């Protein structure tokens, strides 16, 4: 098999957008390597997360090869820099297929994932998504797709659990800005909160980019809500918190990971105090990831962030499936992964891994943070 060097790609595509490079195998091996495609934003705005996820995948590959590989064959990553761009992602997916990649552990951005899925499907690749969270991804109905991170509205559902079950609040208000992901979170929050027996006393909408939410704040005041779930971006969430406190409204604020942005704390100022944020956990908060954190620190000289554990698990899911069925056969591997249950789940460092029919996780462990003294502090899972 011949994998062209990056320079040749630049010639093929005119632009050096696509850089596929192969990691050297951990040690020389006679057997042909198992190629796993890794596509993520390695440059551009999301490069920080992309590089973190690449490190997670590299660590998993290094560990697998140190144990003798999978089915006696070494594992190799084929890297692609999709820069979160669907066009680049499609080109990379085609290169994966052309260069003999059998499985993909890929994608940080949903747009990039959705562009690659039809190509993966045509080639019959096993696809493990570790970072793209749009509900449109399981919505494609691809039966060889498995997701190691939360999907779609799950943060909204978890936030409802926190509000109703953990904090014991029964009168809740919700606000969204009518953007698709935001509405999905807000609707899931309302649905699940009602299932848990809480009452949604107010569901409002605001506009992204607006600065004045006082009219809505007065409605919150009149509704008697004990908590407000806001899935707005940090700028609106910050201003909203501030205006709530300005009008002496004391509702508890609950957000998805939008409030983890330091700008939320800056904009809301003292009004942020006590706000909850539901986010995917940092690596060092995952109970099963202690060894991973140490190994990552040793290999890359820095602490893993938020995303590395999920790409690490994605590589191991692929390896475990091939090992279990005894051959590199995607049909059999997908069938085996679908057959996993709560009791036979793979022990991922991010939690137990088994899937619903659409490839999403039935349960995902979120971390809950609370703003205290100008910082978001870890509270619990």
């Amino acid at each position: 098999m011949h994998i062209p060097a990056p320079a040749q790609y630049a010639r093929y595509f005119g632009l050096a957008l696509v850089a596929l490079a192969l990691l050297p195998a951990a040690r020389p091996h006679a057997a042909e390597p198992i190629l796993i495609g890794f596509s993520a934003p390695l440059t551009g705005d999301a490069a920080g997360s992309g590089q973190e996820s690449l490190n997670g995948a590299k660590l998993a590959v290094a560990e697998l090869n140190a144990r003798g590989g999978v089915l006696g064959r070494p594992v190799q990553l084929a890297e692609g820099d999709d820069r979160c761009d669907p066009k680049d992602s499609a080109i990379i997916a085609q290169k994966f297929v052309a260069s003999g990649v059998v499985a993909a552990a890929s994608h940080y951005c949903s747009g990039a994932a959705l562009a690659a899925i039809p190509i993966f499907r045509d080639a019959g690749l096993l696809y493990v998504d570790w970072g793209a969270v749009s509900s449109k991804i399981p919505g494609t109905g691809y039966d060889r797709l498995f997701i190691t991170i939360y999907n779609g509205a799950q943060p909204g559902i978890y936030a409802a659990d926190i509000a109703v079950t953990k904090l014991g609040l029964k009168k809740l208000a919700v606000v969204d800005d009518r953007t698709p992901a935001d509405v999905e979170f807000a609707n899931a929050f309302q649905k699940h909160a009602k299932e848990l027996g809480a009452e949604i006393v107010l569901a409002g909408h605001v506009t992204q980019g607006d600065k004045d939410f006082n009219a809505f704040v007065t409605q919150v005041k009149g509704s008697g809500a004990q908590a407000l779930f806001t899935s707005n971006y940090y700028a609106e969430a910050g201003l909203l918190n501030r205006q709530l406190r300005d009008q002496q409204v004391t509702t508890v604020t609950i957000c998805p990971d939008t409030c983890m942005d330091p700008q939320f704390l800056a904009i809301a100022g003292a009004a942020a105090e006590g706000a909850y944020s539901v986010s995917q956990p940092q690596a060092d908060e995952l109970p099963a990831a202690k060894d991973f954190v140490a190994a990552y620190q040793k290999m890359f000289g820095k602490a893993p962030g938020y995303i590395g554990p999920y790409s690490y698990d994605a590589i191991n899911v692929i390896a475990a499936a091939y090992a279990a069925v005894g051959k590199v056969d995607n049909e059999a591997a997908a069938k085996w992964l679908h057959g996993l249950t709560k009791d036979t789940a793979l022990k991922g460092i991010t939690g137990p891994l088994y899937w619903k029919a659409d490839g999403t996780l039935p349960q995902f462990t979120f971390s809950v943070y609370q703003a205290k003294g100008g910082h978001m502090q870890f509270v619990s899972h």
Partner: protein
Amino acid sequence: MNLLFQQFVNGLTMGAIYAIVGLGYTMVYGIIRLINFAHGAVFMVGAYLGLTILELLGGATPAIGIAASLLIALVVPAVICGGIGAAMDTLVYRRLRAMRAHPLIPLIAALGISLMLETGAMLIWGKEFKVYPAILPTWHFTLAGAVVNSAQLILLMTCFVMMLSLHLFVQNTRLGRAMRAASLDPNAARLVGVNVNSIILLTFVIGSALAAVAGVLVGLYYGSVNFRMGYLLGLKAFTAAVLGGVGNIPGAMLGGLVIGLLETFGAAYISGEWKDAIAFIILITVIVVRPTGLLGERIAERA
């Protein structure tokens, strides 16, 4: 009832800002028939200048005291933005007037100046939100069930004092009379010895200074500023001017308050995402149904 009154206070606060910024549009339009679209950007620059000055004076705990540093943070941006307004007129609009340029050309120049100021602010202060120091005391009082905090009180008082002063200035001073004369008929004003170009310069300076003060007040009230904040607010203030009757000073004040109140009650009793739509539905309705606005456009007097 107390909710209704709280919404009234919310609307009044927004409306006072629209009124102050709207005055800048209306005064300039009244004399030279130019919609100065750079006015919203001047408001934004004022907000940033206030932030920088407050930070230079020591942030949340200024050495010279809160009252003194607030006064400096309101006056200095007003002076600098007054200078920007003067520069806009002398460097661009006056030259275009001298060339007897087509009325569309100053309008396009205004859009250009607006983009220049916005991009400049982005390069100087950055793309991210900037947070105002928490200088105001966290104090509030309750009036008929409505909470009014210190920032709101300062904002409302400053706006109404400025509106009243402007009104008295325009009605009772020689310069004010010259302004009214230039607005009614620039040529006749020139014949009776009014230096119309100086009067135009003065309206730019006053309008820009008012916008700068409004910017600082908004920064204090909301606590954060960014380089795009002037765009939408400028459009709404312009709507306020049109609603009141463009060119009509008391009209802009009334229009601002009406827009602020309608927008707030619309957001509260229809839905929050309709807020911006409401302001612009008003704009279109006024233009179609009553182009002279609530209090009548000055142009009507001239005909």
